[in-house]
Protein backbone atom coordinates (compact mmCIF):
# COMPACT_ATOMS: atom_id res chain seq x y z
CA UNK A 1 0.00 0.00 0.00
CA UNK A 2 1.38 3.40 -0.84
CA UNK A 3 1.92 5.76 2.07
CA UNK A 4 -0.14 8.55 0.58
CA UNK A 5 -3.65 8.34 -0.80
CA UNK A 6 -5.42 11.13 -2.61
CA UNK A 7 -8.83 11.51 -4.19
CA UNK A 8 -9.16 14.13 -6.90
CA UNK A 9 -12.73 15.23 -7.69
CA UNK A 10 -13.44 16.79 -11.06
CA UNK A 11 -16.67 17.37 -12.96
CA UNK A 12 -16.53 16.09 -16.51
CA UNK A 13 -13.41 15.94 -18.58
CA UNK A 14 -11.70 18.99 -19.94
CA UNK A 15 -8.19 20.12 -20.81
CA UNK A 16 -7.76 21.99 -17.53
CA UNK A 17 -8.64 18.90 -15.48
CA UNK A 18 -6.21 16.78 -17.47
CA UNK A 19 -3.50 19.38 -16.95
CA UNK A 20 -4.24 19.40 -13.22
CA UNK A 21 -4.02 15.58 -13.03
CA UNK A 22 -0.70 15.64 -14.88
CA UNK A 23 0.55 18.33 -12.54
CA UNK A 24 -0.47 16.33 -9.46
CA UNK A 25 1.19 13.17 -10.80
CA UNK A 26 4.40 15.06 -11.44
CA UNK A 27 4.30 16.45 -7.94
CA UNK A 28 3.68 12.99 -6.46
CA UNK A 29 6.54 11.50 -8.45
CA UNK A 30 9.02 14.24 -7.70
CA UNK A 31 8.18 15.02 -4.07
CA UNK A 32 6.74 11.74 -2.78
CA UNK A 33 8.99 9.48 -4.81
CA UNK A 34 5.94 7.84 -6.38
CA UNK A 35 4.82 6.54 -3.00
CA UNK A 36 1.24 7.64 -3.50
CA UNK A 37 -2.10 6.67 -4.94
CA UNK A 38 -4.24 9.17 -6.84
CA UNK A 39 -7.88 8.29 -7.54
CA UNK A 40 -9.69 10.59 -9.94
CA UNK A 41 -13.44 10.82 -9.33
CA UNK A 42 -15.68 12.39 -11.95
CA UNK A 43 -18.59 13.76 -9.93
CA UNK A 44 -20.85 13.75 -12.98
CA UNK A 45 -20.39 9.99 -13.22
CA UNK A 46 -20.11 9.16 -9.52
CA UNK A 47 -22.18 11.77 -7.68
CA UNK A 48 -22.68 9.37 -4.76
CA UNK A 49 -18.94 9.32 -4.01
CA UNK A 50 -18.86 13.12 -4.10
CA UNK A 51 -21.87 13.30 -1.78
CA UNK A 52 -20.39 10.76 0.61
CA UNK A 53 -17.17 12.76 0.72
CA UNK A 54 -19.06 16.03 1.23
CA UNK A 55 -17.51 17.62 -1.86
CA UNK A 56 -19.19 20.98 -2.51
CA UNK A 57 -17.17 22.12 -5.50
CA UNK A 58 -14.59 20.87 -7.95
CA UNK A 59 -11.74 20.49 -8.55
CA UNK A 60 -11.14 19.26 -5.00
CA UNK A 61 -8.19 17.20 -3.80
CA UNK A 62 -8.58 15.18 -0.59
CA UNK A 63 -5.70 13.53 1.17
CA UNK A 64 -7.33 10.44 2.63
CA UNK A 65 -4.18 8.87 4.09
CA UNK A 66 -2.21 9.21 6.21
CA UNK A 67 -4.36 10.96 8.79
CA UNK A 68 -5.33 13.68 9.26
CA UNK A 69 -7.51 14.10 6.16
CA UNK A 70 -7.07 17.41 4.39
CA UNK A 71 -8.70 18.95 1.35
CA UNK A 72 -7.91 21.70 -1.11
CA UNK A 73 -9.99 23.12 -3.95
CA UNK A 74 -9.22 25.52 -6.74
CA UNK A 75 -6.39 25.66 -9.22
CA UNK A 76 -4.12 22.61 -9.40
CA UNK A 77 -2.25 23.52 -12.52
CA UNK A 78 0.26 25.33 -10.33
CA UNK A 79 1.03 22.88 -7.53
CA UNK A 80 3.74 24.81 -5.69
CA UNK A 81 3.14 24.61 -1.94
CA UNK A 82 0.36 22.08 -2.33
CA UNK A 83 1.92 19.37 -0.20
CA UNK A 84 2.48 21.72 2.67
CA UNK A 85 -1.14 22.84 2.41
CA UNK A 86 -2.16 19.20 2.66
CA UNK A 87 0.03 18.72 5.72
CA UNK A 88 2.36 16.36 3.88
CA UNK A 89 5.74 16.58 5.57
CA UNK A 90 7.60 14.00 3.54
CA UNK A 91 9.55 15.49 0.77
CA UNK A 92 12.27 13.87 -1.30
CA UNK A 93 13.31 17.11 -2.83
CA UNK A 94 13.03 20.64 -1.57
CA UNK A 95 10.12 22.39 -3.17
CA UNK A 96 8.74 25.86 -3.41
CA UNK A 97 6.00 26.77 -0.91
CA UNK A 98 3.22 29.22 -1.43
CA UNK A 99 1.12 28.61 1.67
CA UNK A 100 1.11 31.19 4.34
CA UNK A 101 -1.24 29.23 6.58
CA UNK A 102 -0.60 26.24 8.76
CA UNK A 103 -3.08 23.73 7.43
CA UNK A 104 -4.47 21.35 9.99
CA UNK A 105 -6.46 18.19 9.37
CA UNK A 106 -10.21 18.08 8.79
Amino acid at each position, binding site marked *: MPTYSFQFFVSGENAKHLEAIESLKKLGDSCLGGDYELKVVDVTRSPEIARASGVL*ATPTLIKTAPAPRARIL*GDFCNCGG*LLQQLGVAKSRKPHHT*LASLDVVGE
Partner: protein
Amino acid sequence: MMRQSKQDSPVDGLRRALHASEARFRAIVDRSADGIIVLRSSGEIVYVNPAAEVVLDQQAERLIGKNFGVPAVPGDATEIEVIRDEGAKIIAEIRVVTTHWQGKPALLATLRDITERNQREREIREAIECRDHFLAVLSHELRNPLASIVSATEVLRRADDDNSQRQAREVIERESRHMRRMLDDLLDVSRVTKGKITLRKTTVDLVELVRHVAGDNEALMREADLRFKLTVSAVPLYAQADSTRIRQVLTNLLTNAVRYSKPRGHIWITVCCEGDEHVIVVCDDGVGIPQNRLDSIFEPFEQVESDISRSNCGLGMGLALVKKLVGLHGGSVMASSDGPGLGSEFAVRLPAAPAPDPPVIKQPQVDEIQPRKIFVVEDNADARETLKMLLELEGHVVETAADGRQAVDLIDLHRPDLALVDIGLPIHDGYEVARRARKRWGAKVRLVALTGYGQPEDRRRALDAGFDAHVTKPLDYTRLAKLIAQLDSSNASQPTTA
Protein backbone atom coordinates in the same frame (compact mmCIF):
# COMPACT_ATOMS: atom_id res chain seq x y z
CA MET B 1 -31.47 51.96 47.65
CA MET B 2 -30.10 54.01 44.79
CA ARG B 3 -32.50 54.92 41.99
CA GLN B 4 -31.35 53.70 38.55
CA SER B 5 -30.59 56.58 36.32
CA LYS B 6 -32.93 57.01 33.37
CA GLN B 7 -29.94 57.98 31.30
CA ASP B 8 -27.81 55.23 29.72
CA SER B 9 -24.57 54.39 31.29
CA PRO B 10 -21.44 54.80 29.12
CA VAL B 11 -21.35 51.00 28.73
CA ASP B 12 -24.90 50.94 27.43
CA GLY B 13 -24.00 53.65 24.96
CA LEU B 14 -20.98 51.75 23.76
CA ARG B 15 -23.04 48.59 23.50
CA ARG B 16 -25.65 50.35 21.43
CA ALA B 17 -23.00 51.88 19.18
CA LEU B 18 -21.44 48.47 18.81
CA HIS B 19 -24.79 46.92 17.87
CA ALA B 20 -25.43 49.69 15.38
CA SER B 21 -22.00 49.22 13.88
CA GLU B 22 -22.48 45.47 13.65
CA ALA B 23 -25.91 45.92 12.06
CA ARG B 24 -24.39 48.28 9.53
CA PHE B 25 -21.62 45.90 8.54
CA ARG B 26 -23.90 42.85 8.67
CA ALA B 27 -26.26 44.65 6.27
CA ILE B 28 -23.34 45.23 3.89
CA VAL B 29 -22.29 41.59 4.02
CA ASP B 30 -25.87 40.30 3.88
CA ARG B 31 -26.72 42.47 0.90
CA SER B 32 -23.50 41.77 -1.00
CA ALA B 33 -24.17 40.36 -4.46
CA ASP B 34 -21.03 38.25 -4.12
CA GLY B 35 -21.08 35.19 -1.92
CA ILE B 36 -18.85 35.52 1.13
CA ILE B 37 -17.69 32.52 3.12
CA VAL B 38 -15.31 32.35 6.03
CA LEU B 39 -13.26 29.19 6.40
CA ARG B 40 -11.09 27.89 9.17
CA SER B 41 -7.57 27.08 8.09
CA SER B 42 -8.69 23.45 7.65
CA GLY B 43 -11.28 24.53 5.08
CA GLU B 44 -14.24 24.17 7.46
CA ILE B 45 -17.02 26.66 6.80
CA VAL B 46 -17.79 28.93 9.76
CA TYR B 47 -19.81 31.64 8.04
CA VAL B 48 -21.75 32.11 4.78
CA ASN B 49 -23.70 35.15 3.69
CA PRO B 50 -27.04 34.87 1.81
CA ALA B 51 -25.39 35.29 -1.61
CA ALA B 52 -23.07 32.37 -0.82
CA GLU B 53 -26.12 30.28 0.09
CA VAL B 54 -27.45 31.01 -3.40
CA VAL B 55 -24.15 30.14 -5.13
CA LEU B 56 -23.71 26.95 -3.13
CA ASP B 57 -27.46 26.20 -3.34
CA GLN B 58 -27.68 25.27 0.34
CA GLN B 59 -28.92 26.94 3.50
CA ALA B 60 -26.32 28.30 5.93
CA GLU B 61 -27.37 25.75 8.60
CA ARG B 62 -26.39 22.91 6.25
CA LEU B 63 -23.14 24.54 5.18
CA ILE B 64 -21.69 25.59 8.54
CA GLY B 65 -19.29 22.92 9.75
CA LYS B 66 -18.85 21.31 6.32
CA ASN B 67 -15.38 21.21 4.82
CA PHE B 68 -15.26 23.39 1.74
CA GLY B 69 -11.54 22.80 1.28
CA VAL B 70 -8.66 25.23 1.45
CA PRO B 71 -8.85 27.34 -1.67
CA ALA B 72 -5.77 27.13 -3.88
CA VAL B 73 -5.86 30.41 -5.75
CA PRO B 74 -2.45 31.14 -7.25
CA GLY B 75 -3.33 34.52 -8.75
CA ASP B 76 -6.12 36.97 -8.04
CA ALA B 77 -8.90 34.54 -8.74
CA THR B 78 -9.67 31.09 -10.10
CA GLU B 79 -12.71 29.21 -11.28
CA ILE B 80 -14.40 26.33 -9.51
CA GLU B 81 -17.46 24.29 -10.39
CA VAL B 82 -20.12 24.20 -7.74
CA ILE B 83 -22.02 20.95 -7.72
CA ARG B 84 -25.76 21.35 -7.47
CA ASP B 85 -28.36 18.70 -6.77
CA GLU B 86 -29.45 16.60 -9.77
CA GLY B 87 -26.04 16.86 -11.39
CA ALA B 88 -26.31 20.50 -12.41
CA LYS B 89 -23.32 22.72 -11.88
CA ILE B 90 -22.43 26.36 -12.02
CA ILE B 91 -19.09 28.05 -12.54
CA ALA B 92 -17.99 30.34 -9.74
CA GLU B 93 -15.05 32.67 -9.56
CA ILE B 94 -13.33 32.45 -6.21
CA ARG B 95 -11.04 35.01 -4.56
CA VAL B 96 -9.37 34.47 -1.22
CA VAL B 97 -7.77 36.66 1.44
CA THR B 98 -6.50 35.74 4.85
CA THR B 99 -8.40 37.01 7.88
CA HIS B 100 -9.13 36.12 11.50
CA TRP B 101 -12.21 34.46 12.91
CA GLN B 102 -12.73 34.35 16.65
CA GLY B 103 -9.09 35.14 17.19
CA LYS B 104 -7.73 32.45 14.89
CA PRO B 105 -6.29 32.67 11.37
CA ALA B 106 -8.96 32.09 8.77
CA LEU B 107 -9.72 32.57 5.11
CA LEU B 108 -12.30 34.84 3.60
CA ALA B 109 -13.43 33.66 0.16
CA THR B 110 -15.72 35.52 -2.18
CA LEU B 111 -17.74 33.56 -4.74
CA ARG B 112 -19.30 34.99 -7.87
CA ASP B 113 -21.52 33.02 -10.23
CA ILE B 114 -19.90 33.50 -13.65
CA THR B 115 -21.74 30.74 -15.51
CA GLU B 116 -23.53 33.15 -17.84
CA ARG B 117 -20.46 35.32 -18.28
CA ASN B 118 -18.41 32.27 -19.25
CA GLN B 119 -21.12 31.15 -21.65
CA ARG B 120 -21.16 34.58 -23.31
CA GLU B 121 -17.37 34.64 -23.49
CA ARG B 122 -17.38 31.18 -25.05
CA GLU B 123 -19.98 32.27 -27.60
CA ILE B 124 -17.92 35.35 -28.46
CA ARG B 125 -14.77 33.25 -28.84
CA GLU B 126 -16.62 30.80 -31.08
CA ALA B 127 -18.06 33.66 -33.12
CA ILE B 128 -14.58 35.14 -33.58
CA GLU B 129 -13.19 31.74 -34.58
CA CYS B 130 -16.09 31.28 -36.96
CA ARG B 131 -15.51 34.74 -38.47
CA ASP B 132 -11.78 34.15 -38.87
CA HIS B 133 -12.42 30.78 -40.47
CA PHE B 134 -15.02 32.32 -42.74
CA LEU B 135 -12.71 35.15 -43.81
CA ALA B 136 -9.98 32.64 -44.59
CA VAL B 137 -12.39 30.51 -46.63
CA LEU B 138 -13.88 33.57 -48.32
CA SER B 139 -10.47 34.85 -49.29
CA HIS B 140 -9.48 31.45 -50.63
CA GLU B 141 -12.70 30.81 -52.47
CA LEU B 142 -12.73 34.22 -54.13
CA ARG B 143 -9.10 33.93 -55.17
CA ASN B 144 -9.70 30.74 -57.13
CA PRO B 145 -12.23 32.06 -59.63
CA LEU B 146 -10.42 35.39 -59.68
CA ALA B 147 -7.18 33.65 -60.65
CA SER B 148 -8.98 31.95 -63.54
CA ILE B 149 -10.49 35.25 -64.65
CA VAL B 150 -7.10 36.99 -64.53
CA SER B 151 -5.52 34.21 -66.60
CA ALA B 152 -8.38 34.16 -69.09
CA THR B 153 -8.11 37.95 -69.48
CA GLU B 154 -4.43 37.55 -70.24
CA VAL B 155 -5.30 34.89 -72.83
CA LEU B 156 -7.76 37.33 -74.43
CA ARG B 157 -4.99 39.93 -74.62
CA ARG B 158 -2.38 37.64 -76.14
CA ALA B 159 -4.18 34.99 -78.18
CA ASP B 160 -5.32 35.86 -81.66
CA ASP B 161 -7.12 32.65 -82.57
CA ASP B 162 -10.87 32.41 -82.16
CA ASN B 163 -10.77 29.13 -80.29
CA SER B 164 -8.55 30.41 -77.46
CA GLN B 165 -10.55 33.59 -77.20
CA ARG B 166 -13.80 31.66 -77.00
CA GLN B 167 -12.40 29.39 -74.30
CA ALA B 168 -11.14 32.37 -72.31
CA ARG B 169 -14.54 34.05 -72.56
CA GLU B 170 -16.21 30.87 -71.34
CA VAL B 171 -13.85 30.72 -68.36
CA ILE B 172 -14.64 34.32 -67.47
CA GLU B 173 -18.38 33.69 -67.75
CA ARG B 174 -18.26 30.48 -65.74
CA GLU B 175 -16.04 31.83 -62.96
CA SER B 176 -17.98 35.08 -62.69
CA ARG B 177 -21.16 33.04 -62.34
CA HIS B 178 -19.49 31.01 -59.62
CA MET B 179 -18.42 34.13 -57.70
CA ARG B 180 -21.83 35.62 -58.10
CA ARG B 181 -23.52 32.49 -56.74
CA MET B 182 -21.21 32.49 -53.71
CA LEU B 183 -22.03 36.10 -52.92
CA ASP B 184 -25.74 35.50 -53.44
CA ASP B 185 -25.66 32.53 -51.06
CA LEU B 186 -23.80 34.61 -48.52
CA LEU B 187 -26.38 37.37 -48.68
CA ASP B 188 -29.30 34.96 -48.64
CA VAL B 189 -28.06 33.09 -45.58
CA SER B 190 -27.80 36.40 -43.78
CA ARG B 191 -31.32 37.36 -44.87
CA VAL B 192 -32.87 34.01 -43.94
CA THR B 193 -31.12 34.10 -40.57
CA LYS B 194 -32.58 37.53 -39.89
CA GLY B 195 -36.00 36.34 -41.07
CA LYS B 196 -35.96 38.78 -43.98
CA ILE B 197 -36.81 36.37 -46.76
CA THR B 198 -40.49 36.23 -47.65
CA LEU B 199 -41.55 33.24 -49.68
CA ARG B 200 -43.76 33.80 -52.71
CA LYS B 201 -45.58 30.50 -52.65
CA THR B 202 -47.55 29.11 -55.52
CA THR B 203 -48.56 25.58 -56.39
CA VAL B 204 -45.44 24.10 -57.94
CA ASP B 205 -45.00 20.80 -59.74
CA LEU B 206 -41.81 19.46 -58.16
CA VAL B 207 -41.29 16.95 -60.98
CA GLU B 208 -41.19 19.72 -63.57
CA LEU B 209 -39.06 21.91 -61.35
CA VAL B 210 -36.49 19.15 -60.79
CA ARG B 211 -36.37 18.52 -64.55
CA HIS B 212 -35.58 22.21 -65.13
CA VAL B 213 -32.86 22.31 -62.49
CA ALA B 214 -31.32 19.13 -63.88
CA GLY B 215 -31.40 20.64 -67.37
CA ASP B 216 -29.79 23.87 -66.15
CA ASN B 217 -26.95 21.93 -64.56
CA GLU B 218 -26.44 19.36 -67.28
CA ALA B 219 -23.44 21.19 -68.72
CA LEU B 220 -21.87 21.48 -65.28
CA MET B 221 -22.14 17.73 -64.75
CA ARG B 222 -20.86 17.01 -68.25
CA GLU B 223 -17.83 19.24 -67.71
CA ALA B 224 -17.09 17.36 -64.49
CA ASP B 225 -17.32 14.08 -66.41
CA LEU B 226 -20.21 12.79 -64.29
CA ARG B 227 -23.03 10.42 -65.27
CA PHE B 228 -26.47 11.64 -64.31
CA LYS B 229 -29.74 9.80 -63.85
CA LEU B 230 -33.10 11.34 -63.08
CA THR B 231 -35.97 9.17 -61.83
CA VAL B 232 -39.23 11.00 -61.38
CA SER B 233 -42.83 10.23 -60.63
CA ALA B 234 -44.99 9.70 -63.73
CA VAL B 235 -47.57 12.12 -62.34
CA PRO B 236 -47.02 15.72 -61.21
CA LEU B 237 -46.19 16.14 -57.52
CA TYR B 238 -47.48 19.45 -56.24
CA ALA B 239 -46.24 21.49 -53.28
CA GLN B 240 -46.98 24.99 -52.05
CA ALA B 241 -43.57 26.47 -52.60
CA ASP B 242 -41.58 29.46 -53.76
CA SER B 243 -40.27 27.98 -57.00
CA THR B 244 -37.23 30.32 -57.08
CA ARG B 245 -36.18 29.21 -53.61
CA ILE B 246 -36.75 25.51 -54.24
CA ARG B 247 -34.75 25.84 -57.45
CA GLN B 248 -32.02 27.43 -55.33
CA VAL B 249 -32.22 24.49 -52.89
CA LEU B 250 -31.94 21.91 -55.67
CA THR B 251 -29.20 23.82 -57.49
CA ASN B 252 -27.18 23.98 -54.28
CA LEU B 253 -27.63 20.25 -53.64
CA LEU B 254 -26.74 19.41 -57.21
CA THR B 255 -23.66 21.67 -57.37
CA ASN B 256 -22.66 20.24 -54.01
CA ALA B 257 -22.88 16.72 -55.44
CA VAL B 258 -20.80 17.82 -58.44
CA ARG B 259 -18.13 19.42 -56.23
CA TYR B 260 -17.77 16.34 -54.09
CA SER B 261 -17.75 13.81 -56.94
CA LYS B 262 -14.81 12.39 -58.79
CA PRO B 263 -14.57 12.17 -62.58
CA ARG B 264 -16.67 9.32 -64.03
CA GLY B 265 -18.76 9.39 -60.85
CA HIS B 266 -22.55 9.26 -60.74
CA ILE B 267 -25.31 11.55 -59.56
CA TRP B 268 -28.90 10.41 -59.16
CA ILE B 269 -31.98 12.46 -58.45
CA THR B 270 -35.29 10.84 -57.60
CA VAL B 271 -38.59 12.54 -56.95
CA CYS B 272 -41.41 10.57 -55.39
CA CYS B 273 -44.37 10.77 -53.06
CA GLU B 274 -44.30 9.27 -49.57
CA GLY B 275 -47.61 9.62 -47.74
CA ASP B 276 -48.43 13.30 -47.42
CA GLU B 277 -44.90 14.36 -48.33
CA HIS B 278 -42.94 14.66 -51.54
CA VAL B 279 -39.34 13.56 -51.36
CA ILE B 280 -36.51 14.77 -53.58
CA VAL B 281 -33.33 12.77 -53.15
CA VAL B 282 -29.98 13.93 -54.54
CA CYS B 283 -27.47 11.15 -54.34
CA ASP B 284 -23.84 10.75 -55.44
CA ASP B 285 -21.03 8.23 -55.19
CA GLY B 286 -18.43 10.88 -54.37
CA VAL B 287 -16.23 11.59 -51.35
CA GLY B 288 -19.00 10.96 -48.78
CA ILE B 289 -19.43 12.47 -45.33
CA PRO B 290 -17.98 11.17 -42.05
CA GLN B 291 -20.71 10.12 -39.59
CA ASN B 292 -19.77 12.79 -37.06
CA ARG B 293 -20.26 15.54 -39.65
CA LEU B 294 -23.73 14.60 -40.86
CA ASP B 295 -25.47 17.19 -38.66
CA SER B 296 -22.86 19.94 -38.62
CA ILE B 297 -22.65 19.91 -42.42
CA PHE B 298 -25.73 22.17 -42.44
CA GLU B 299 -24.06 24.78 -40.26
CA PRO B 300 -22.85 27.93 -42.07
CA PHE B 301 -19.19 27.84 -43.17
CA GLU B 302 -18.97 24.06 -42.76
CA GLN B 303 -17.20 22.04 -45.41
CA VAL B 304 -16.47 18.34 -45.45
CA GLU B 305 -12.91 19.21 -46.37
CA SER B 306 -11.92 21.53 -43.54
CA ASP B 307 -8.37 22.02 -44.75
CA ILE B 308 -8.65 25.31 -46.59
CA SER B 309 -5.53 24.76 -48.61
CA ARG B 310 -7.04 21.62 -50.14
CA SER B 311 -10.62 22.66 -50.44
CA ASN B 312 -12.36 23.94 -53.50
CA CYS B 313 -15.79 23.67 -52.09
CA GLY B 314 -17.39 27.09 -52.00
CA LEU B 315 -18.07 29.07 -48.89
CA GLY B 316 -19.78 26.28 -47.04
CA MET B 317 -22.97 28.34 -47.18
CA GLY B 318 -24.89 26.27 -49.71
CA LEU B 319 -26.15 23.56 -47.37
CA ALA B 320 -26.87 26.06 -44.58
CA LEU B 321 -29.08 27.88 -47.03
CA VAL B 322 -30.72 24.63 -48.17
CA LYS B 323 -31.68 23.77 -44.60
CA LYS B 324 -33.03 27.22 -43.83
CA LEU B 325 -35.03 27.51 -47.05
CA VAL B 326 -36.52 24.02 -46.77
CA GLY B 327 -37.36 24.80 -43.14
CA LEU B 328 -39.18 27.96 -44.24
CA HIS B 329 -41.33 25.74 -46.47
CA GLY B 330 -42.29 23.55 -43.50
CA GLY B 331 -40.11 20.74 -44.83
CA SER B 332 -36.93 19.04 -43.76
CA VAL B 333 -33.61 17.98 -45.23
CA MET B 334 -31.48 15.11 -44.08
CA ALA B 335 -27.97 14.03 -45.06
CA SER B 336 -26.82 10.45 -44.96
CA SER B 337 -23.64 8.72 -45.98
CA ASP B 338 -22.02 5.34 -45.43
CA GLY B 339 -18.79 7.20 -44.72
CA PRO B 340 -15.79 8.72 -46.48
CA GLY B 341 -15.46 7.57 -50.08
CA LEU B 342 -18.92 6.01 -50.11
CA GLY B 343 -21.01 8.84 -51.50
CA SER B 344 -23.74 10.87 -49.87
CA GLU B 345 -27.45 11.35 -50.05
CA PHE B 346 -29.57 14.42 -49.34
CA ALA B 347 -33.30 13.94 -48.94
CA VAL B 348 -35.56 17.00 -49.07
CA ARG B 349 -39.10 16.47 -47.79
CA LEU B 350 -41.83 18.97 -48.57
CA PRO B 351 -45.51 18.84 -47.59
CA ALA B 352 -47.69 17.71 -50.50
CA ALA B 353 -50.34 20.12 -51.85
CA PRO B 354 -53.47 19.49 -53.95
CA ALA B 355 -53.35 20.02 -57.72
CA PRO B 356 -53.97 23.63 -58.79
CA ASP B 357 -56.93 24.84 -60.80
CA PRO B 358 -56.34 24.62 -64.58
CA PRO B 359 -54.26 27.64 -65.62
CA VAL B 360 -55.66 30.47 -67.71
CA ILE B 361 -53.60 30.56 -70.89
CA LYS B 362 -52.29 34.04 -71.68
CA GLN B 363 -50.89 35.25 -74.96
CA PRO B 364 -47.13 35.72 -74.54
CA GLN B 365 -46.05 39.34 -74.64
CA VAL B 366 -43.13 40.26 -76.84
CA ASP B 367 -40.93 43.02 -75.49
CA GLU B 368 -39.64 45.30 -78.18
CA ILE B 369 -36.31 46.87 -77.31
CA GLN B 370 -35.81 50.38 -78.65
CA PRO B 371 -32.61 52.40 -78.52
CA ARG B 372 -32.59 54.65 -75.44
CA LYS B 373 -30.57 57.49 -74.00
CA ILE B 374 -28.89 55.98 -70.98
CA PHE B 375 -26.77 57.77 -68.41
CA VAL B 376 -24.28 55.64 -66.48
CA VAL B 377 -22.97 57.15 -63.23
CA GLU B 378 -20.17 55.02 -61.80
CA ASP B 379 -16.87 56.03 -60.22
CA ASN B 380 -15.13 52.75 -61.03
CA ALA B 381 -13.75 53.38 -64.51
CA ASP B 382 -13.71 49.72 -65.58
CA ALA B 383 -17.25 49.09 -64.43
CA ARG B 384 -18.40 52.33 -66.10
CA GLU B 385 -16.71 51.69 -69.43
CA THR B 386 -17.68 48.02 -69.73
CA LEU B 387 -21.30 48.83 -68.94
CA LYS B 388 -21.18 51.65 -71.53
CA MET B 389 -19.72 49.28 -74.12
CA LEU B 390 -22.37 46.67 -73.41
CA LEU B 391 -25.26 49.11 -73.64
CA GLU B 392 -23.85 50.59 -76.85
CA LEU B 393 -23.65 47.10 -78.32
CA GLU B 394 -27.41 46.90 -77.70
CA GLY B 395 -27.79 50.07 -79.72
CA HIS B 396 -28.37 52.53 -76.87
CA VAL B 397 -26.82 55.99 -76.68
CA VAL B 398 -24.76 56.15 -73.53
CA GLU B 399 -23.28 59.09 -71.59
CA THR B 400 -21.29 58.69 -68.40
CA ALA B 401 -20.31 60.53 -65.23
CA ALA B 402 -17.72 59.55 -62.65
CA ASP B 403 -18.97 61.37 -59.54
CA GLY B 404 -22.12 62.72 -57.98
CA ARG B 405 -21.60 66.37 -58.88
CA GLN B 406 -20.82 65.58 -62.51
CA ALA B 407 -23.90 63.39 -62.56
CA VAL B 408 -26.16 66.18 -61.28
CA ASP B 409 -24.70 68.65 -63.82
CA LEU B 410 -24.78 66.31 -66.81
CA ILE B 411 -28.18 64.81 -66.20
CA ASP B 412 -29.62 68.25 -67.04
CA LEU B 413 -27.58 68.33 -70.22
CA HIS B 414 -28.28 64.81 -71.45
CA ARG B 415 -31.83 64.38 -70.17
CA PRO B 416 -31.63 60.56 -70.44
CA ASP B 417 -34.51 58.11 -70.53
CA LEU B 418 -32.76 56.03 -67.92
CA ALA B 419 -29.98 56.72 -65.43
CA LEU B 420 -28.05 53.83 -63.87
CA VAL B 421 -26.54 55.35 -60.74
CA ASP B 422 -23.98 53.78 -58.43
CA ILE B 423 -24.63 54.51 -54.74
CA GLY B 424 -21.10 54.90 -53.39
CA LEU B 425 -20.07 57.95 -55.43
CA PRO B 426 -17.59 60.73 -54.61
CA ILE B 427 -18.89 64.25 -53.75
CA HIS B 428 -22.63 63.40 -53.80
CA ASP B 429 -23.67 59.81 -53.21
CA GLY B 430 -26.20 58.06 -55.41
CA TYR B 431 -29.09 58.87 -53.05
CA GLU B 432 -28.33 62.59 -53.33
CA VAL B 433 -28.09 62.33 -57.13
CA ALA B 434 -31.52 60.65 -57.16
CA ARG B 435 -33.06 63.27 -54.87
CA ARG B 436 -31.76 66.16 -56.99
CA ALA B 437 -32.64 64.53 -60.31
CA ARG B 438 -36.12 63.70 -59.06
CA LYS B 439 -36.63 67.24 -57.76
CA ARG B 440 -35.66 68.75 -61.09
CA TRP B 441 -37.17 66.24 -63.50
CA GLY B 442 -39.96 64.61 -61.56
CA ALA B 443 -41.00 61.30 -63.10
CA LYS B 444 -39.53 62.12 -66.52
CA VAL B 445 -36.33 60.20 -65.91
CA ARG B 446 -36.20 56.60 -64.80
CA LEU B 447 -33.62 56.12 -62.08
CA VAL B 448 -32.05 52.78 -61.26
CA ALA B 449 -29.74 52.35 -58.26
CA LEU B 450 -26.75 50.16 -59.02
CA THR B 451 -25.13 48.93 -55.84
CA GLY B 452 -23.23 46.26 -54.01
CA TYR B 453 -25.55 46.67 -51.02
CA GLY B 454 -28.38 44.22 -51.46
CA GLN B 455 -30.14 44.12 -48.10
CA PRO B 456 -33.86 44.97 -48.00
CA GLU B 457 -33.11 48.16 -46.03
CA ASP B 458 -30.72 49.23 -48.82
CA ARG B 459 -33.49 48.73 -51.37
CA ARG B 460 -35.93 50.68 -49.22
CA ARG B 461 -33.45 53.51 -48.80
CA ALA B 462 -32.91 53.68 -52.56
CA LEU B 463 -36.63 53.77 -53.27
CA ASP B 464 -37.12 56.44 -50.56
CA ALA B 465 -34.45 58.59 -52.25
CA GLY B 466 -36.44 58.52 -55.48
CA PHE B 467 -35.04 55.56 -57.39
CA ASP B 468 -37.51 53.54 -59.45
CA ALA B 469 -35.55 50.34 -59.06
CA HIS B 470 -32.65 48.87 -57.16
CA VAL B 471 -30.23 46.48 -58.89
CA THR B 472 -27.53 44.58 -57.06
CA LYS B 473 -24.04 44.25 -58.52
CA PRO B 474 -22.84 42.31 -60.39
CA LEU B 475 -25.38 43.38 -62.92
CA ASP B 476 -27.58 40.70 -64.44
CA TYR B 477 -27.87 41.92 -68.04
CA THR B 478 -31.11 40.03 -68.65
CA ARG B 479 -32.71 41.93 -65.79
CA LEU B 480 -31.25 45.19 -67.02
CA ALA B 481 -32.68 44.52 -70.47
CA LYS B 482 -36.07 43.94 -68.85
CA LEU B 483 -35.83 47.24 -66.98
CA ILE B 484 -34.97 49.06 -70.19
CA ALA B 485 -37.84 47.33 -71.97
CA GLN B 486 -40.19 48.46 -69.21
CA LEU B 487 -39.42 52.08 -70.09
CA ASP B 488 -42.21 51.90 -72.64
CA SER B 489 -44.74 51.33 -69.91
CA SER B 490 -42.94 53.47 -67.36
CA ASN B 491 -45.47 56.24 -67.28
CA ALA B 492 -47.14 54.27 -64.52
CA SER B 493 -43.82 54.16 -62.77
CA GLN B 494 -44.03 51.59 -59.98
CA PRO B 495 -40.97 50.94 -57.85
CA THR B 496 -39.37 47.65 -58.74
CA THR B 497 -36.50 45.64 -57.43
CA ALA B 498 -34.22 43.37 -59.34
